[in-house]
């Protein structure tokens, strides 16, 4: 049985409409409402142990979906089961199996050391104290925060705080972990460290992880599967590589030529298209199928010093989806 089961999920909100200026007075007498459809019709299943990236532009419905899955929101229609339970019933048995990390909301208290917050969580989740200590030691060591958890949280940097936050979220060993923008605002090396940790945690515990992020590097590094939503609709569900192939059915070939030929005339194969030529480096575009033939030909015909075949930048592909709204 799948760990997360979502069928025909819908969520709409009634929001008050306010006019500007004096016209706003009308609203005092009679409130106008409009309906916002945050999620229109989403279905998917996630198997235990999967790490799934949940992406979409701002306002696509990602956080709304995560809130429904974690039990913070009732859907308007549809069926949801997470770990076999209906999330919004918020039963203790359910809440003990999940955890949600929100990049912008903290559960470790500001003025006191994280360790004190962990002690409270240990009691809330009824973790025996020796076991709690073992888990704190293990998670803190994995994240490299053993020395930091005894310091008041307000003395820590944003990245350090996020690591302490992750320890807090994982103490009760949730079977399902929701990560909403966990790397928000963090520097590149902390982001990388967190990614490594999440991957390692998934490998060790087999937890199911659903991650939203605007950093494609997070998704690229962690998620074998990607769910893309746009304006409340699911527009792609599958492997990241598949999405790239579908959206960007070409590769970029970058070559540097011998100094003497750097600015000379080019005899390019007909399947290759010149994109850019700058400081002796040439960027070509060729369809995936033609890439090997084109490279072979280039290597034979030109004095190539360096050659690299790359996928188009993932950000460009994602931007294409967000702007176009389809895959």
């Amino acid at each position, binding site marked *: 049985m799948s760990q997360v089961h979502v069928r025909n999920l819908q969520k709409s909100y009634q929001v008050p409409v306010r006019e500007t200026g004096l016209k706003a007075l009308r609203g005092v007498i009679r409130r106008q409402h409009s309906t916002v459809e945050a999620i229109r019709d989403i279905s998917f299943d996630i198997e235990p142990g999967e790490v799934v990236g949940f992406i979409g532009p701002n306002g696509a419905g990602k956080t709304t979906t995560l809130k429904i899955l974690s039990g913070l929101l009732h859907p308007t229609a549809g069926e949801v089961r997470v770990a076999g339970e209906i999330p919004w019933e918020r039963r203790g*048995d359910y809440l003990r199996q999940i955890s949600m990390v929100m990049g912008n909301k903290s559960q470790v208290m500001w003025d006191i050391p994280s360790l004190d917050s962990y002690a409270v969580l240990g009691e809330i989740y009824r973790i025996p104290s020796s076991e709690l200590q073992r888990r704190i030691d293990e998670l803190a060591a994995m994240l490299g925060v053993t020395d930091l958890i005894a310091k008041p949280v307000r003395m820590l940097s944003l990245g350090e705080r996020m690591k302490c936050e992750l320890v807090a979220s994982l103490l009760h060993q949730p079977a399902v972990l929701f990560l909403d923008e966990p790397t928000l605002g963090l520097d590149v090396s902390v982001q990388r460290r967190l990614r490594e940790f999440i991957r390692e945690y998934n490998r060790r515990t087999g937890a199911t992880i659903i991650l939203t992020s605007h950093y494609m590097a997070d998704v690229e590094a962690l998620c074998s599967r990607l769910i893309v939503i746009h304006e409340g609709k699911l527009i792609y569900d599958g492997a990241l590589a598949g999405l790239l192939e579908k959206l960007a059915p070409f590769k970029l070939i970058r070559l540097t030529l011998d100094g003497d030929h750097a600015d000379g005339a080019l005899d390019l194969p007909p399947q290759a298209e010149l994109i850019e030529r700058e400081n002796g480096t040439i960027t070509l575009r060729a369809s995936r199928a033609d890439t090997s033939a084109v490279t072979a030909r280039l290597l034979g015909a030109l004095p190539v010093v360096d050659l690299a075949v790359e996928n188009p930048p993932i950000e460009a592909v994602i931007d294409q989806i967000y702007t176009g709204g389809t895959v």
Partner: protein
Amino acid sequence: MNVRAGWMLVRRTWSSWMQSRSFFFLLAFGWLIGPLIYLFVWATAAGQGAVDGWTRGEFVAYYLVLINVNQITYSQTYWTVGMMIQMGSFSRLLLYPMAPVFDAIASEIAGKVVYMTFVIPVTAVLALILRPTLSTTVGNVALFVIALGMAWALRFFLGYAQALLSFWFTRTDALLAAQEALVFVLAGQIAPTALLPAPLDRLALLLPFRYMLGFPVELLMGRLSGAEILTGFALQGGWLLVALSLYRLTWRRGVRHYTAVGG
């Protein structure tokens, strides 16, 4: 919810608040100014004689006890709960396998410990200077303790239920401020309720506010007859039931509403 978790919550909140204790001491100082002013007004009015059977020393005793009772029953968390709901940080509490009210109760207890470390010494010094007249019995002390616990619960749950209205409305602090104003007039702060002019005195006896503050003080001072004690406890118990029902109602409906519209 287990007792150990509750205790840990209290300890955590307490140690967090002790980090900024001077802020809380200043708050507590602000709260004792009101009753202190009325202490001096009534003590001066009584002078060497009495006002309606109250001597100067009795007014001093009444207000010094009232300052402590007010501090114990005053519920600061309901202001913060409303804010947490509006800011969305209440979601964090909904994710724990624990009813969020325990978090508020833990803050209450932690807060009391912080405030009382300030208020008890201050009133003790005032007692040395102002020489209150207080003769009480073991029985009255026992009744006082029971009524004090109920007064805290009544003030807390009524306030908490109002704070939960934030699930529907953006600003509920005006309602809380109205409650505090009524407490000021009808609970025994501006004057002991027995000294209020008619019909305010009768109103004060029927409404819940006296049972949040003045009633336990009057019990301790032994100013109530057996019949008054019985009706007092009946009304206090009745209002406590009302407050608990309102809390349950606003909690159940509120959380359903919150999860329908999003935090």
